[in-house]
């Protein structure tokens, strides 16, 4: 191998190693080693924030996963994130609804809640932000 070719070969290797860093491989591996799946799940989807995976899990475990309940997210996320706990063998309980990311200080939220959900009773309340409600 000529010196020039050899240098070019090493340059190739250096650039490829640089790409490993650009793709964030060391940090991704570090996070996988340090944080388990459950913790990363809560940090990605939130407990009672973002898609509120944690709160949905809490409600579904309350019913042992034997019922599908729709959810309504007040924040800028997909309206229903019940898909995480969807069980195709059970029907949707249309009398119940999980409310996510409700902000009582937000006038629009309050107005919408009163308009749509005034004929519901609260079965579970987490910090006035996430609820399980049921039709009266």
């Amino acid at each position, binding site marked *: 191998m000529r010196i020039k070719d050899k240098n*070019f070969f090493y340059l*190739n290797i250096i*650039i*490829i190693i640089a*790409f*490993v860093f*650009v*793709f*964030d*491989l060391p*940090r*991704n*591996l570090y*996070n*996988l*080693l340090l944080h*388990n*799946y459950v913790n*990363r799940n809560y940090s*990605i*989807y939130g407990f009672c924030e973002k*898609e509120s995976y944690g709160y949905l899990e809490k409600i579904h475990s309350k019913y042992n996963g034997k019922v599908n309940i729709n959810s309504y997210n007040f924040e800028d*996320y*997909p*309206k*229903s*994130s019940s*898909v*995480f706990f*969807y*069980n*195709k*063998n059970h029907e949707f309980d249309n009398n119940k609804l999980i409310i996510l990311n409700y902000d009582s200080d937000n006038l629009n939220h309050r107005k919408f809640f009163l308009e749509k959900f005034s004929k519901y009773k609260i079965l579970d309340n987490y910090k006035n932000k996430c609820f399980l409600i049921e039709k009266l």
Partner: protein
Amino acid sequence: MIEILAVLFSFFSLSILFLFPSFFLVNKFSILKKLNFFDLLSVNIIFQFTIYLLFSFFYSNISTLITNFFFISLISLFIFFYYNKNIKINKRLLLSILLFTIIVLCNFFSIANNFKLQWDAVAHWFWKTQNFYQNGDLTQLRNLPYPFYPHLGTYLWASFWKLSILNHEYLGRLYYSYIYIVSIFAVLQPIKSKYFFILISSLCYLIFDSYALGGYQEYLVFFFITFVGRLFFLLKEKKINNIFFLLLFLLAINLLIWSKQEGVIYSAILFLTYIFTFRTELKNKVLIFLFLSLIVSLYFYLNFLFKGNLFFHEPIINSFYKFKNFKIFINSFFLISLHLFKSLVQHPTTIISALLLLLLLSTKKLNFASINHILLFFALNIILIYAIFYHSQFPVESILGPVLGRLILQTSGFYLVSFVYFFNANYQYEK
């Protein structure tokens, strides 16, 4: 640690699985000798996905089938190396496989660390995956959001999820990342330049989009379109057998249609590209038209039969209000053009490819006939983008941001062949 092992196992199993069958048949069929290693992987993916698609209409669980393919492939690999002990793999291919492994693992671990399902995935794709994961069949999609969306990607996602060693959904969707990198390597393998490894790493990085890997079907569409782009190149430059081309073209088109709704339109665009830019007998063109009509009709018929629904996301006939009001028409045109430019910059492979082709044409290193199919595909694709946004009932500004970038991404692989033309035309000037 167990998660890292699970990801590595997924890489190993996908790599073995997709060696079947063409890798072991190279010596038996001379046509396969014209293909590079990553072409063979692509052909296998097309072959296997077609079988999985067929099975999806009858079986909700294909774990046994995939496992059988895996073991047949693994045993064939041992037999292959047993009988070819003195096989010499060229250094460049070995380095390519090494680089491929590094890039795929970078992608896999990126998904593993940030496995968030993005908006559309939560809103409709993951519902289908959950159904298939719980051994639900196609008819049960009727009760879920957007049942008419094509199911191929989510069916495979659920199948690979079932076969993963941990019960984490993201392990099922690692295959999206695997196949798109395979297609990039397949297209770029013929590059002779000494900058090959740097170029391929850079392009993989430019095409990588962590958002689109969050449960979207874009990379599935990307793979099929890139594969067809590669087939066009092989037909034009390597003069591959016409029947072989037609077979793979139709299989890829069929899978494209079952991947995403716009797949039907992309298949029509690819068909038109073939009809207008390739010199072939009229018989072949008629044949391909008949098969395409059959594939599209089957798609609508089976969708109606199984899912009870054959509609698009929006009705095809609507008020067309953006055409009726001149002010809205002009405003929409400027907004679409602006966002189109922004998206082309965000996903720069298309724009770089266009510049490279222009440079080659202007310096007369390439004749127009070699690349007319790329230019026609590009033109039709741009027309499609404007048509989608003009047709939509939603205000243009509300849908441009999230949709346009993904539309550009899924077709960007088709233009990658420009890099092959450019670097090979300039290879003699490299010192």
